[in-house]
């Protein structure tokens, strides 16, 4: 009959093995979570940015707006400025386009010049018409548009802004 008595030495060995394993387990799994944590956070958050009361935005004249978005990466906060123009064609709340004021050439901010009847970029004198179409200059494509818009219950025009 084999000796089933557990020797002091084997007991210590087993205890060391067990406690060591427990420590590795209790520390190891959180350590993995700690390392991969930033990858588990969802990015590209979407927020509705209010632009202004729709009934105060004039019809026919491009209405400038701007807003600032703060992006948080860990302990670093980066705020970026964005701007654009609301172009209302008629009183119909749906009949409008919202243009991004960032020039599609090199990213300067375009301004509406009523005497030229165009958006003019200060950097290379590019011109866009009220719909954002390129009239003159180097830009490769029309002005970008904010396409996701809605009018809130209190009459505020809002655009959907998605973090990159």
């Amino acid at each position: 009959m084999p000796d089933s008595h557990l020797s002091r030495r084997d007991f210590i060995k087993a205890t060391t093995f067990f406690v060591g394993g427990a420590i590795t387990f209790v520390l190891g799994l959180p350590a993995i979570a700690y390392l991969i944590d930033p990858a588990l956070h969802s990015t590209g958050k979407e927020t509705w940015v209010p632009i202004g009361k729709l009934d105060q935005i004039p019809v026919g004249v491009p209405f400038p707006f701007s807003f600032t978005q703060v992006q948080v990466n860990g302990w670093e906060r980066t705020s970026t400025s964005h701007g654009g123009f609301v172009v209302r064609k008629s009183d119909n709340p749906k009949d409008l386009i919202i243009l991004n004021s960032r020039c599609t050439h090199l990213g300067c901010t375009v301004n509406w010049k009523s005497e030229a009847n165009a958006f003019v970029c200060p950097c290379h004198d590019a011109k866009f018409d009220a719909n954002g179409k390129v009239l003159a200059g180097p830009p490769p494509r029309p002005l970008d548009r904010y396409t996701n818009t809605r009018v809130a219950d209190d009459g505020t025009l809002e655009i959907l802004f998605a973090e990159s």
Partner: protein
Amino acid sequence: MWKKIFDWLDERLGLNDLYKNLLDRPEPKGMWWNTLGSASLFLFILQGVTGIFLTVYYTPSPDHAYDSINYIMQGVAFGWLIRGIHHWGATLMVIVVFIHMLRVFVTASFKYPREMTWLIGVGLFLLTLGMGFTGYLLPYDQKSFWATTVGTQIAGSVPFIGGFILKVLRGGSDISALTLQRFFAAHIWMLPAALAGLIGVHLYLIIKHGESHYPSKDE
């Protein structure tokens, strides 16, 4: 199958010899006080591992050191655990290393042929204190800023060369970005490298000489 693999490895790496000489070496009939050296080693490794993990998010710059630690505590999964272990482990390590030293002194284990083991051990204790001192500044909050102000001023009170020592410690006459950066470098590179090297020699000497018997009443 496993035995075959183990035997193959053992033949080439000498695993059984290692085990016999490192873990199965004869010990005098001991007390729990004799385990404090191993406890110190364990804490050193634990501090090393958690410290390495902390550097994943920590930034040693005056602008962001505090924010990055705040982020570790609030934002990162189990960041509080990793930093908590490092924080309390540091205190525990100073205590354990000190009691270990006290035990060696009280049992007169520093005598021939173990004088070098003792001297290196003193170096290890001082390095451990250095780790505590440099690590204390890294959160860069009010407490650590003023603790370092006082600590470096004490070093600056040495006659004749005190002012020079203070400037070397701070990287200039004020506590600044340079202070934080050099304390960080000392904390994660220089002191741990010195500790690891001396621990290696310390362990070699312990294995070479074996642990000392406690003196009996007749001796």
